């Protein structure tokens, strides 16, 4: 994988990294991993920061306002940064800086929820969007080969849709319907806490529903937001509790298309200290380590995909971004400009600390 990228770089060096300084171009050419992190910069403006494996700053792609997550397609180098909800912009860029970024916007009667995924061949982009007049989620379909022209949409089968991921079969999207309705007329006000109905829907790429699963009714205020796939193909999901502030439901669970959803037990103290809120989910590259960021508690909490159990946690204030990094490690970022590689055994490797920079909710790392 890493060798492939070097070969590609050697062959295409001339057109690579147009417009970058020589040091940034060198970093871009030699880094085995590129880190893509939406952030607020010291001057209060927003950008996607592109960092090398040593945490070196390679370039920044300006965003018109606060971003959220980035969809990435490794083979084509395509990436799209989405606006934080209820934002309406998306900024498409080439990971290797071979072309200028381009901005596209949601339909006037939709806004982005902040997440999306590419098809296996990288030609289509699926974005989670709010049909706010109807109050339901949709997946907007965009043509990545044609300026991200919007080709159509299909329903997510839920309200307050958040992350959607393409499963390893390349044919199925798993869609987290958080269950919380919002409408841009009222900003981020939550409209239906009493009647929330979160779910994970499995659909094919034409939008046909394959399966849809819910937690038991007593957890209907557990908003299912983020997902990562473990080594055995099980989906690990992270939730945010909108119910009684003194209740301590498990916040992380596992899902399969066939058997539905189950919550994973977390020790009581550690669970309570997650403060009822998971901000992002990630799996290490080999899929054995599953990590959930808990920004309100100030931790990244780790689980084993092999045993299905809690294994430990790393204290990181205002943690949030977490993404697969090494074979058995994840990369975590926080709102105070820190980025660190974490292992389940408590191993930590600080990549960078950027005073004044606030890394946003999600980040992605892409191997060459």
């Amino acid at each position, binding site marked *: 994988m890493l060798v492939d990228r070097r070969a590609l770089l050697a062959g295409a060096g001339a057109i690579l990294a147009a417009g970058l300084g020589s040091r940034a171009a060198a970093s871009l050419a030699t880094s085995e991993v590129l880190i893509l992190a939406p952030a607020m910069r010291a001057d209060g403006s927003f950008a996607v920061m592109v960092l090398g494996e040593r945490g070196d700053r390679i370039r920044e792609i300006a965003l018109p306002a606060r971003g*959220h997550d980035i969809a990435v397609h490794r083979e084509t180098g395509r990436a799209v940064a989405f606006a934080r909800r209820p934002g309406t912009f998306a900024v498409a860029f080439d990971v290797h800086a071979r072309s200028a970024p381009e901005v596209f916007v949601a339909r006037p009667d939709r806004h982005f929820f902040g997440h999306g995924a590419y098809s296996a061949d990288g030609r289509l982009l699926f974005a989670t969007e709010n049909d706010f007049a109807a109050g339901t989620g949709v997946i907007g379909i965009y043509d990545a080969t044609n300026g991200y022209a919007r080709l159509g949409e299909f329903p997510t089968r839920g309200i307050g849709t958040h992350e959607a991921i393409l499963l390893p079969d390349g044919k199925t999207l798993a869609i987290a319907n958080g269950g919380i309705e919002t409408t841009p007329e*009222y900003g981020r*006000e939550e409209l239906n806490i009493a009647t929330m109905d979160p779910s994970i829907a499995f659909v094919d790429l034409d939008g046909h529903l394959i399966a849809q699963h819910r937690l038991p009714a007593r957890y209907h205020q557990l908003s299912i937001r983020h997902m990562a796939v473990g080594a055995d193909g099980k989906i690990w999901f992270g939730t945010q509790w909108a119910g009684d502030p*003194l209740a301590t439901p498990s916040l992380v669970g596992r899902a399969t298309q066939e058997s539905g959803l189950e919550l994973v037990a977390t020790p009581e103290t550690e669970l309570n200290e997650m403060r009822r*809120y998971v901000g992002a989910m990630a799996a290490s590259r080999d899929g054995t380590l599953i990590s959930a960021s808990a920004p309100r508690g*100030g931790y990244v909490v780790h689980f084993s995909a092999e045993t299905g159990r809690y294994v430990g946690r790393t*204290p990181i204030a205002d943690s949030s971004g977490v993404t697969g*990094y090494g074979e058995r490690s994840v990369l975590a970022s926080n*709102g105070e400009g820190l980025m660190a590689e974490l292992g389940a055994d408590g191993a930590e490797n600080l990549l960078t600390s950027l005073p*004044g920079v606030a890394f946003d909710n999600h980040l992605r790392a892409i191997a060459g």
Partner: protein
Amino acid sequence: MIRILLSFAAILGLIAPAAAQTPMSGEGTPIIPTATEADYARVVEQAVTRYMLPAYTSLNEATTELAASVADFCATPEPAKVSAVRHAFQSTVAAWAGVDFLRFGPMAQDGRYERFAFFPDVHGTGARQIRGFLVSQDEALLKPGALAGQSVAVQGLPALESLLFLGRESLLQPAPPEPFRCALAVAVAKNMQTIADEALAGWQGDKSWAGLIENPGPDNPVYRTHAEAMTEVLKAILTGIEQVRDQRLTAALGNGPDDAKASRAPYNVSRQALFYIAASADALQRFADVSGILGLLPDSQASYGNSADFEFSNLKGALAKTGADMEAALADPQLRSRLSYAAIVLQSLRDLFQRHVAVWAGLSPGFNSMDGD
């Protein structure tokens, strides 16, 4: 890929809450907060005793008066009693503005917040269900506690507002009230009183939210430190400012004159929308004042306190000159511009508290932990 593995203990200092570097202000001066855990404890205690307890007591008194006045009016409807109901309704709107930015505590339990005031009701659930109730005249709805099992949209202030003020059949008009509608209003007002009772009780005593927020520690399920409890107080101010601006004022102002719509503001049916927004501004200023949050800043930064006073008085000044009726204010360019100005001042206030007060007080509301995504 992990090349240099530092030991867990060694790196802890780098990524634990105590940040690795001293934050800098916009002017490039290092920010060195002086507030201690004891200072946070004092401000939280002041917020509870000087604000939360009196504010929830006010809500309790207002809803008690409201339930009594509606019941009295419906028992023997006389035109003279209309003003008592109007007065009690307005007091309840003001008392609600005094607590509805406190999105934690007993009001956040058992769905009390939504049940007391479900807003915005973008799908018109409350109006639709109440129409259904009025058609079915189902007496079972009037039994004590029965409404608590119904949709949150029919249980609280907006539902009562529509029964009292909305349409040809509204109760507070010269024609004699329709008995079932009146009885339903009594049930809604009683339900609100029950919720307000529970909220007040939840703040009183050792095992209450006052106990939780004033006694942080490792076994406290919500607050580990006084700084965390203090952050809850700060977040309430930030939430309150954002709520008034985005969900009340800007919602009504829309994207421009043609898009403005008074009905998007709460309590517009009773013509209380501007009264409610002014009451919210007043409540936020009082909360900031009596808690003493600005006293957490180092002496060298005391001018931020003056800035807050200045902005709050700008806000209240603008809101005082918009008339009483939201619809009329939105239709009049001069009055509408005052509302737009109020929205701008609210933004300045939010920046002031988030970017200056928070950091100089040594508090970190969190870029991502406040994010809600």
